[in-house]
């Protein structure tokens, strides 16, 4: 349970970074921290204390198993976050070409 709250705290740390940082790359890092916190939460959901890995072989009787489904979900989510991060970084690099800066305060051609 403590671990779960720590993971949620990590999520909030990432959110804080996204909300307050002014550098594009730091915003991306904040988002990545958020995503990783989400993966941690997902992985912790399937965790059982003292459980075996979910590979069933014969003569294993009444062993408790870790829930394998969240792990599969985490893998999928990692793939998605990889795509997101790659796209974000390439957009950030292109913004740098156009504006010559990573500072959010100076990238303000759009109002509102």
């Amino acid at each position, binding site marked *: 349970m403590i671990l779960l709250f720590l993971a949620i705290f990590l*999520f909030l740390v*990432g*959110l804080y970074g*996204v909300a307050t940082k002014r550098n*594009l790359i730091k*915003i991306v890092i904040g*988002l990545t921290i*958020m*995503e990783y*916190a*989400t993966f941690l*939460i*997902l992985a912790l*959901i399937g965790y059982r204390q003292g459980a075996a890995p979910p590979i069933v072989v014969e003569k294993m009787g009444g062993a408790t198993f870790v829930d394998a*489904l*969240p792990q599969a*979900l985490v893998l*999928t*989510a990692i793939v*998605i976050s990889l*795509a*997101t991060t790659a*796209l*974000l970084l390439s*957009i*950030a690099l*292109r*913004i740098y070409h*156009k*504006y010559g800066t990573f500072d959010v305060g100076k*990238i303000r*051609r*759009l109002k*509102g």
Partner: protein
Amino acid sequence: MNLIPLFVAIPLAMAFVMPLFGRLSRLLPDLLGNAATLALAALSCAMINLPMMVYKVGGWEPVNGVPIGIYLVVDGLAVLMLLIINVIGFAVSVYSIEYMRKYTDKARFYTLFLLMMAGMNGVVISGDMFNLYVFLEVAAIASYALVAFGTEAEELEAAFKYQVMGTAASGFILVGIAVLYSLTGTLNMADAGKVILEQGRSQGALFAGALFLMGFGLKAAIMPFHAWLPDAHPSAPAPISAMLSGVLIKAIGIYALCRIFFNVIGLNLTTSYILMAMGALSMIAGVFLAIGQWDMKRLFAYHSISQMGYVVMAIGIGTPLAVLGGLFHLVNHATFKSLLFLNSGAVVYSTGNRDLQKMGGLNQRMPVTGATSLIASMSIAGIPPFNGFWSKLIIILAAVQAGYYGLAALAVVGSIMTLASFLKVQRYGFFGKLRPVWKKVREAPVFMCVSMVLLALLCVGMGLLLLPGVKDGLLDRAADAVTGGTDYSGLVLGK
């Protein structure tokens, strides 16, 4: 052979055939892309009036009544959404044949466009929460890339903003799914709905609901979470603006919200009030922000927020009539808002300008664009006989019927303000004296006109959906699927 998977399979396949063969000839991307969207539109039309279908991917049958594979579910609501997505998608892809010519890499455009279609179709037909999330991300990531497609400074800035917001929203949604999974032990929406019903609604489910509200609210740009939309939607190329404003925010925002809140968690009074409040707020604030805009596309984008407010408010009221009105308004908004964005694209294509102050009298030079934009403006402002009138009327009636007189009054005020702002568009943009600068302007090319006329006909004819025979088949079934609430699980799992 059941054809439901084709809704995802066709656009996915075409999207990845495109980079392989798209370079061979200039015509090929157009041909393949439009063939794919045409097939999808035909397929979605074939779905009308079929009974509710459940498709088990991979042939994984439930074990002891517990579903283990991924389910694809097509019920009334899904059919309605599929129709919107694929018909508008077809119109937009016809439009992009001419419009996207000035961008160099058409094959890549179609790849992203079809990926977005595949994602939205997947969201709509998926019966599994995580699968819904994955398709939502496919659609969203494709849309981020499409907003940045022109790689000009403003587009990149808007895309970055949009993507940061979108990724944060996805984070909330994923945490919500995690919470719901830990509560119910299943990802299948029908099964989760059943388990929540049996357990009674707990604090955890409410927490998940709040997370989903934030996540999907961000994706649908409901008022406190709207900041990205007026930047992102106008910055994209016009067909993409039409797709984003017309379809994407509905498919991955409103639809998912409906599905989760009505069919899985179940609506209670608190969430209903929250939805109504958020809807009313976006409805009024959106239109007030819109009326001061001089950039044509930005004005339309703010109106998207406002019109989505109507839909969310109606869904929040939750009576069968209100839900019917909300869903009908959703369909109508998809047609007239995408038509308006296509109009603005035609204006930009011919004049290279989207500032209303610099336009004027374009009706004389661009009759088709002018006429269709008049129809769309009248529709969105709610002038009878056009489709917007009927849906707004139903929403207002439903609000009165449910006893929310204040909301009804607000809806009327919003409608009047909308009329005012579109009178402004018509007055400055298309009527009045032709400026000498635009003497040489020519009408948009034929494919763009065809697609605009198609959508304009839909705008005029959509009122017919309320005719008794037609209404049962489409709107009623969609509204039933929403108001039926957690009956959904019984229908999907087959009792």
